């Protein structure tokens, strides 16, 4: 399923409380969310619970999803991230409230833009594959192991500056793959 289709499912949930759309979305994301949580080292039972809680949040927070701001995968990632923090740290993590964010430059949707958006989303999907292995290693450690960049540096036995520059390089690649309206 591509990101445009996934985005539409989330929008349909927000607008119509559509359970069929939710079931479709679940089929795509549930196994990935669980895999992500397993990679984060929480164990299979907790990973399953984290996945189910995250999917429930997807249903409840669907109205906060802005397809112009993020892809479906990116938005669902932030849901999982926040759930994991709530669950594992038992802290309420402050989050940038999307409704508090000033309107972005208006994006009257034209056929050209839609085409461009599709193109860039395809780029984004493969951006991770195209990153050099040393950058991916740093990112995976940061995302999967819940490590701050300085701990990542320590554990990989790398100078802090090296980790910082790998993060910067990966981000500039990522920004290049995203349309202006999404970055």
């Amino acid at each position, binding site marked *: 399923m591509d*990101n445009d289709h996934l985005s539409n499912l989330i929008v349909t949930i927000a607008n119509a409380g559509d359970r069929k759309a939710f079931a479709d979305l679940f089929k795509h994301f549930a196994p990935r969310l*669980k895999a*992500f949580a397993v990679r984060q080292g929480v164990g299979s039972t907790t990973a399953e619970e984290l996945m*189910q809680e995250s999917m*429930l949040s997807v249903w409840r927070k669907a109205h906060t999803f802005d397809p112009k701001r993020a892809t479906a995968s990116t938005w669902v990632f932030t849901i999982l991230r926040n759930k994991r923090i709530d669950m594992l740290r*038992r802290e*309420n993590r402050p989050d940038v409230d999307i409704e508090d964010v000033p309107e972005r430059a208006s994006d009257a949707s034209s056929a050209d833009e839609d085409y461009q958006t599709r193109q860039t989303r395809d780029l984004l999907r493969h951006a991770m594959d195209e990153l050099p292995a040393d950058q991916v290693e740093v990112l995976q450690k940061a995302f999967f192991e819940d490590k701050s960049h300085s701990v990542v540096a320590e554990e990989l036995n790398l100078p802090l500056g090296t980790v910082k520059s790998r*993060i910067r390089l990966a981000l500039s690649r990522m920004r290049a793959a995203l349309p202006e309206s999404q970055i």
Partner: protein
Amino acid sequence: MINHHPPLELLFDYATGSLPEPVALAVASHASMCSDCRKQVDAVESLGGALLSSIEPEEVSKDALRSVMARLDEPEVGAMRCAAATNRETTEVVPEPLLPYLGRGLAHLAWRGVGRKFDEVHLNLAAKGFKASLMRLKPGAEMPSHTHVGTEYTLVLAGGYKDNGEQYGRGDFALKDSSHEHRPIVDTDEPCLCLVVLDAPVKLTGAMGRLMNPFLRV
């Protein structure tokens, strides 16, 4: 115009979810006022999204879908985001991520005067080893010179101050660690309101510091 931002690495750690709550609060509050930093956070999150979409899926339990579907109509419990009883004056100054931690208008917080130069109010955060507070410094207030054992994160919410020749105003984010000695001076006509997060005690460097230093009390 915001001139001082969190370093990219701090935004990165925020977006991956590895920052402790008080620091995340300061970063989120800044990002809610700064579109540049929000773009950086969005970019890191899109890396997370790319990792999620490219991961090898893991089999979920057989009744997972059914059990989640059964809960869709459940009311949401334990949401911290209580509608804070605040006034317009407060919501114009306090960024959205910070509001739930106050729970009431700025004028009704438990402000505690420290000397004649400033008031402060502690924020109730569970994270161990951190102190977070709102500080309101009077115009002209000059803080004693000090350095830090750990790191001090400051987000200016109103007014402004000068520190080592640099001007800080609303939205500016300052990060000071043991390599900085600093001495902020409030140089605006209105009081300077800041969110201050500390992850270790400060080291005083001036003789008068012990009595006056706001950071000592947090």
